[in-house]
């Protein structure tokens, strides 16, 4: 217990020690002696963020259901705990058995956000794992990455032994079995890796980029296990509620949206299964809220039936229901009305762009009438607080497009006053202005990103107009963060040195506003002779090879290019769920596409 007692020593000195205790309800403690493979599932951000991530909860359950495998968790400690650990020379350990991460067979890291890359290095370093994969010793863990950023992991490829491209539910079990077999056959590190590389969807950067790696995805969501007994935290976390994934994938085809491309095809679970899963989650966690997880809730085929059925089950048990994302139309308001019978918390709409021309260019099939109808329905049904999401810096955006954002919001404000009349005193419109970031595997992957100055000017333009109105609150995202995220999103292998240098110079938790260290990035780039800002605004010719050309999400590059041209022509591509197949490339991979084609 020597390790444990020194671990306990630092607990009195840190904020929220509950983050580091383990012992949570539904956490799984297996005897390491009884398993053949130990997997440390890590999240390169704080406990409160990582524990909210549904994907990690799913993988935790799947790995622990394997009789020969044990999965334990670790998160990046907060900065005060990092200091306390360094003072005592304590390595980062798993929450379950307090085993140093360096003793695991696998250390898995989910890459949800490019700005977490330096935290990935920090976490490995705290665990005393050699940062560079090619320098790791024979007994060090295999460091494995996954998640959306694995669709272009090149900037951090040097730090990983392997990646899983796509959805992990099936491939993680294949990895465990292949690992157990390769170990039993006496394979060394290189031999084990070579075996794992044979699995479809597994990308081993050290084996080169000649072979195209096709993403993995589950064909049938209905039979795919869900996390129905997720780990329940002691302390409050960001999403402190049960999560039920109703569908996966979205074919609306917004041209900036990576999730909308890489999670294709659309798959759904049945109302019966979802109701059952929601009840199981409530039974196993005691949560008082269940939230539906989806890229686009209203697109679920039987959404009204589902919500009614869930309410029937959950309301008597004093469990409320939450909806994450809404479409900008009055159907969505009707849906929200069904979900929130009592408390009218805010409603969120995402028109993304201010002008019709630009909304067409990004393929956001929403008209001004749609938004006004949705807003009217919301006000008429008693909502007084609306949140509107916009994006600036989109390809082809003009000053008039930016002004149109402000005009559109003012239109909603006028409508609110008119509908609410005397009751408009509490009317609030929160406007969130994000910055466009070109992401791999989207039609806008070739787009030039705005400079920091351009983004700031556009933010100021909107603020200047909307700042006059007491009832409108504008929030903007850091332009500097957007630029760094954009660079890392499209970076190649040559970025590894810069990411490591930034980590060594103190950049960690870069996705946290107050922690983001832009000067560090500028400095380390300058030290290596790279003009970061020039790189950020360079052009991306469509004929040049891309760093992620060897990784396929199933959506063809030719389709993305066609979509880019459609964007330039400000022409919409209809959703293939209600219209003809748009030929994105998934058809050959997904039987449901062919089926839909046949039935329509």
């Amino acid at each position, binding site marked *: 217990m020597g390790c444990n007692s020194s671990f306990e020593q630092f607990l009195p000195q840190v904020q929220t020690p509950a983050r580091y205790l383990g012992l949570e309800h539904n956490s799984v403690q297996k005897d390491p002696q009884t398993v053949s493979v130990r997997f440390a599932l890590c999240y390169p951000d704080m406990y409160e963020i990582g524990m909210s991530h549904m994907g990690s909860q799913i993988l935790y359950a799947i790995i622990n259901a394997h009789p020969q495998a044990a999965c334990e968790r670790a998160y990046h400690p907060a900065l005060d705990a990092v200091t306390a650990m360094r003072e005592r020379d304590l390595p980062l350990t798993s929450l379950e058995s307090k085993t140093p991460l360096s003793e695991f067979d696998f250390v898995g890291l989910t890459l949800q956000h490019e700005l977490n890359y330096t935290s990935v290095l920090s976490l490995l370093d705290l665990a005393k794992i050699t940062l560079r994969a090619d320098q790791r010793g024979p007994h060090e863990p295999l460091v494995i990455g996954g998640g959306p950023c694995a669709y272009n992991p090149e900037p951090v490829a040097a730090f990983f032994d392997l990646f899983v491209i796509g959805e992990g539910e099936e491939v993680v079990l294949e990895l465990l079995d292949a690992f157990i077999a390769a170990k039993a056959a006496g394979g060394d590190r290189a031999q084990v890796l070579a075996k794992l590389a044979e699995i479809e969807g597994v990308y081993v950067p050290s084996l080169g980029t000649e072979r195209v790696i096709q993403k993995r995805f589950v064909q049938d969501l209905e039979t795919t296990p869900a996390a129905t007994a997720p780990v329940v935290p002691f302390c409050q976390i960001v999403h402190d509620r049960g999560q039920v994934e109703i569908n996966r994938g979205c074919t609306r085809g917004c041209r900036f949206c990576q999730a909308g491309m890489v999670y294709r095809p659309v798959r759904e679970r049945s109302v019966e299964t979802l109701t059952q899963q929601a009840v199981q989650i409530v039974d196993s966690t005691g949560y*008082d809220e269940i939230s539906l997880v989806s890229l686009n809730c209203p697109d679920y085929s039987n959404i009204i039936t589902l919500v009614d059925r869930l309410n029937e089950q959950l309301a008597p048990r004093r469990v409320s229901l939450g909806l994450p994302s809404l479409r900008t139309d009055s159907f969505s308001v009707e849906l929200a009305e069904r979900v929130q019978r009592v408390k009218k918390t805010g409603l969120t709409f995402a028109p993304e762009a201010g002008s019709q021309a630009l909304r067409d260019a990004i393929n956001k099939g929403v008209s001004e009438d749609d938004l006004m109808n949705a807003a009217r329905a919301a006000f008429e049904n008693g909502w007084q607080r609306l949140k509107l999401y916009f994006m600036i810096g989109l390809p082809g955006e003009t000053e008039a497009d930016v002004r149109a954002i402000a005009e559109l919001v003012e239109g909603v404000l006028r409508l609110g006053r008119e509908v609410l009349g005397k009751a408009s005193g509490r009317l609030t419109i929160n406007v969130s202005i994000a910055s466009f970031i070109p992401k791999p595997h989207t039609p806008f992957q070739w787009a030039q990103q705005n400079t920091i100055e351009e983004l700031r000017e556009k933010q100021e333009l909107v603020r200047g107009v909307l700042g006059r109105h007491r009832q409108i609150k504008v929030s903007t995202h850091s332009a500097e963060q957007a630029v760094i995220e954009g660079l890392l999103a499209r970076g190649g292998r040559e970025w590894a040195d810069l990411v490591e240098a930034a980590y060594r110079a103190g950049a960690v938790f870069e996705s946290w506003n107050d922690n983001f260290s832009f000067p560090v990035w500028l400095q380390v780039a300058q030290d290596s002779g790279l003009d970061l800002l020039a790189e950020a605004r360079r052009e991306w010719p469509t004929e040049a090879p891309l760093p992620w050309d060897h990784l396929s999400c199933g959506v063809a590059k030719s389709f993305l290019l066609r979509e880019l041209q459609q964007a330039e022509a400000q022409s919409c591509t209809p959703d293939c769920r209600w219209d003809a197949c748009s030929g994105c490339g998934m058809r050959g991979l997904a039987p449901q596409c062919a089926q839909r084609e046949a039935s329509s």
Partner: protein
Amino acid sequence: MIERAYARVVFRKTGLLRFLGHLDVLRTFDRAVRRAKLPVEYSQGFSPHAHLSFAMPLPLGVSGERELCAIDLATDWQPIAIMKGLARQLPYDLGIVEAQVLPRVKRSPFADLVAADYRAEIADLEPQQLQDAVAALLGRDELIIHRTTKSRELDLDLRGRIKELRAEDGALFMRLGLTDDDLAKPEEVLRLLAQDLGPLPVRSMTRTALWDQGEL
């Protein structure tokens, strides 16, 4: 049949879970009560929560062997069913020691608590040394400590507030007043001893009991 019943639950807060904050304990009990499907009274409103109250929350890092929680019941229920139901839903270190079902009272269920027992394990000290220091302390007429509260600073005499104090095998046993005008804190007693012995390295601090007026 008790008309308006509440469960008076004794639980422990030990091991690593002594580092749980009070709100975390509250949240954990609320969820455990829901999972156990106990017939508990819930608050009204949009996000109802179980009617739970705790006696004198422990400071972070201090263990408790007999902590108290009151759960308002919607209907009379068997204490054993409450114990078993909760035991399955809580980790050992937040485990249920015993449960009673009693009629609810108008005042706080813990209004009668007057004293608490503490055990402090002291490291690196000869048992005799500790014993002598305790004897010397108890021989003094006044035991003045300086206390800083949120609103003010004051000097206090703890003499009457320390109900019992003795050294046992290198550990310190304390029974201390708990009400607002009789409160003594264990770390204040340690500070008094430190005047004699120098700083005392405390290996662990445990609240071993909470006492009602009638029980003493």
